[in-house]
């Protein structure tokens, strides 16, 4: 999947505040926060994420279900039956409890893989962009090559090599989703490298290392964080795709993607509670991260805007 994160670069927002006398003294972070909060969709996204994460991680503390032992005497109970608000699945697990458990995996895999991909990509892109010359060329050709193989193909092959488990999925997705961030950060590094403040620093006798540490990385961090948000969303989707292709995590671990693709088989069985809740959950969480990413993008952009 080419991601929104790669495809949509931020558009400049024009309404620059006036060239006013004493600008309100406000921390960069606070200012960003204000702008983020002004983006209503971003707030909706954040709310959604907090809600879903809260249900998944705190829910089980209040709503106890047995997600270890199967119960073949209570399979496919309809919602409400025998005290299962969302019914049970094909081996008798409580579906609501399962959704919480699956949500934990999805969120953890998404966050971890997104962060891993971003970290790898950032390092790769920063090194390439800052080194320049043939190092850059070589490193970027590798990225090009891997990008020209559909990512789903790569994931499929990798998932076939290693046996998928939660840590493995994180590594697999992380290992191949870093290409987008690598390109972005490299582009940033290239432009940042020639920024006047970097030149100014070199004019004071500063080294390349300092340029990367003090100037390039902190300034690329906005792009990186925004991108990480989209990466998280994409990672959650990737897990779903892998599950659909039969390469997801095996039971009793659950994840929304796997539950959804399992639920596909139940499309016509009348067991709607096995299909739609995970489907909606996955859409909501991916949507949430995309909204958040959009909001962060605005926020970071505003922070850099001149007065």
């Amino acid at each position: 999947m080419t991601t929104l994160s790669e495809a949509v670069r931020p558009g400049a927002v024009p309404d620059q505040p006036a060239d006013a006398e004493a600008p309100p003294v406000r921390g960069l972070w606070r200012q960003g926060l204000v702008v983020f909060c002004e983006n209503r969709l971003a707030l909706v996204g954040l709310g959604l994420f907090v809600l879903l994460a809260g249900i998944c991680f705190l829910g089980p503390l209040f709503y106890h279900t047995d997600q270890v032992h199967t119960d073949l005497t209570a399979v496919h109970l309809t919602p409400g039956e025998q005290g299962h608000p969302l019914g049970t699945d094909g081996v008798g697990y409580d579906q609501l409890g399962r959704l919480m458990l699956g949500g934990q995996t999805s969120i953890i895999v998404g966050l971890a893989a997104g962060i891993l991909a971003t970290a790898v990509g950032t390092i790769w892109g920063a090194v390439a962009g800052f080194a320049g010359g043939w190092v850059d060329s070589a490193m970027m050709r590798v990225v090009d090559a891997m990008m020209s193989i559909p990512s789903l193909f790569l994931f499929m092959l990798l998932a076939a090599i290693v046996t998928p488990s939660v840590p493995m999925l994180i590594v697999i997705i992380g290992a191949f989703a870093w290409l987008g961030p690598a390109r972005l950060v490299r582009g940033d590094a290239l432009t940042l490298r020639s920024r006047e403040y970097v030149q100014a620093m070199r004019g004071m006798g500063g080294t390349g290392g300092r340029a990367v540490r003090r100037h390039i990385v902190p300034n690329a961090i906005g792009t990186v964080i925004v991108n990480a948000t989209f990466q998280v969303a994409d990672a959650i989707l990737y897990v779903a795709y892998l599950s659909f292709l039969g390469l997801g995590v095996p039971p009793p671990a659950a994840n929304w993607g796997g539950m959804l693709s399992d639920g596909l088989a139940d499309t016509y069985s009348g067991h709607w509670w096995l299909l739609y809740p995970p489907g909606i959950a996955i859409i909501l969480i991916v949507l949430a991260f995309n909204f958040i990413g959009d909001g962060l993008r605005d926020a970071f952009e505003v922070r850099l805007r001149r007065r």
Partner: protein
Amino acid sequence: MSESTGRHTPAAGGVQPLLELRDLDTDIALRHGTVHALDGVSLQVMPGETLGVVGESGSGKTMTALSIMGLLPPGGRVSGGQILFEGRDLRALPADEVRRIRGVRMGMVFQDPLTSLNPTMRIGAQVGEPLRVHERVGRAEARERTIEILRRVGMPRPERIVDNYPHELSGGMRQRVAIAMALVCSPRLLIADEPTTALDVTTQRQILELIDDLKEEFGMAVVLVTHDLGVIAGRADRVAVMYAGRVVETATTAELFRSPRHRYTQALMEALPESAIRESGEHARLYSIPGLPPDLSRPLTGCRFAPRCRHVTDECRTTEVTLSAGAHQHACLHPVPTELAAPVRLPAPVRVEPAPAVAAASSAESAAEPVLSVRNLVKNYAAHGRGLLRRTAGQVSAVADVSFDVAPGETFGLVGESGCGKSTVGRLAVGLEQPTAGQILLDGTDIAGLTGRERRRMHRQVQLMFQDSYAAMNPRMRVDAILAEPLEIQKVGGTTERRARIATLLDQVGLSRRVLERYPHEFSGGQLQRIGLARSLALQPRLIVGDEPVSALDVSIQAQVLNLMRDLQRELGLAYVFISHDLSVVDYMADRIGVMYLGKLVEVGPARDVVRAARHPYTQALIDAVPSVTPNAAAERDGVTIRGELPSALNPPTGCRFRTRCPLAQDICATEPPLAGDAHEVACHFPLRPESTAAAAPAGAAA
């Protein structure tokens, strides 16, 4: 021209104004609150008249123009008053009607010719578009008329240009295109918003003359918006001075420059470097207006200039002042008394006074070991072809064989048109780039041979100051980190010592300690330039290379920074290399001046000699092109005029690089002239004047 020819006095009965603004209010809605960009602006433009609008940045000049055109930015709207154009209120007309008027009866030229043209549309299509839309003419006819109008704006080979894209033209040519576009429907009114600010002085002169000529030819009125008093002085019939969203004074040009009444206008004029030189004939301190213009998003009462005014009284702060009646209107409670307003002593566009002894003294001083010595410096960049079919071709010769010295405590000014290699020399001098050939000696040591550690120490000696201080500061660092950075890099002192040093620096540049925890985006341009200066000073360098350090600033702020730089120089014994394209600023600041053309140093000498008794035709042309606050001076000049465009640095002309544009060029110019002379060197086969005391050579500079 205006007064003397007696045309178009604003109050002249019978003649209806072409455009009249009555109490115009314009608001711009922002995320938080609203900027009241214009507050009760009233103006009149008579048919065939040129109205100059001047004022500091943010005073509402552009908003006035955009309000008239109905092109306010998102969130902007005219909230009150009337815009009467040919007697009809544009605000009351239907949108379509206004659109037609905008396209046919009015034309506008914007400041930045680089971005004002659609990059993917052919010139012909863009210029001809209003014809096609408003007059519904056919393709062929539109093309013909486009070529015609391009020819009229002085575009070379218009039949070819119509099929070009904007990026294939130079800045000056693009601005001509923009003007042609505005004029293609023969409008009654042309609004030009800083049409020349982004251009070189030589081009600026061409464009301004063009507008003047066309105005005559089309018989249209012009609103010329600019922040440059010099531009206005040469071109406008009448001038409106704006401050903080209001018109504070209007008068005929001659009247205004002879006796400005508003205290703000007066202060502005005094802040010009030209006037400092004029007053004393010496490098006196400039008058600088304290403080900053007010924040227009807050409610304001009284005279808006009151907080910065020397003559303020309590009354000023509370009374709303309106424009006085009459031909010379002003909105000031304590105007400059007419009797005291001594007629402005107009400076000669080129100084003709005898060179003072200072020049000689400074050249004598330079016998001392120079801080910086540049020897036969060459810098070539690998060039990349442009466009689809141009192959990679050779090298850009950015700096070609440049040599000069800078003595301790001296200011060496470097001037020249855009792209002539000034910045490159600056960057080479501070060791940011490696020269292709030649040497750079700092205190007698060649910086090329330094080892890593020595190199780092070398960076203490010489510092760079940037044009855009904002761009030169990491937006994510607070001022304390920014100022501490050079100290950290050079490992100077511990934390406490650094803090103490930073405090001293702030004192030196006149900023309060409170700024330390703020971010760059929270400062004004002048403040930023001070911080940049403070950073340059942190390591106690002996030499500061300032690359256009004041070009982005308003006159009033510019004055503050220039004063500061001079004070510090005196205090700390600094040497400056002062790079600028603005001759009057360099003239004010520099002890000696080097003039560059296309990578070559064509003339070096003591500042006064160079400015007053230029020897190179190029220098003379530059000087002549500088607009002066003497009204109508430009029209009377008959000095050296440069023709054509700056040749490409990719394939610079052989021999004297200026010969392609030089009125005096002869065959011999194909051989390279050496830089010759004693204190006042020139590289020309036909120097305008022999080197001597400049007074003896008034040629080419009729006063």
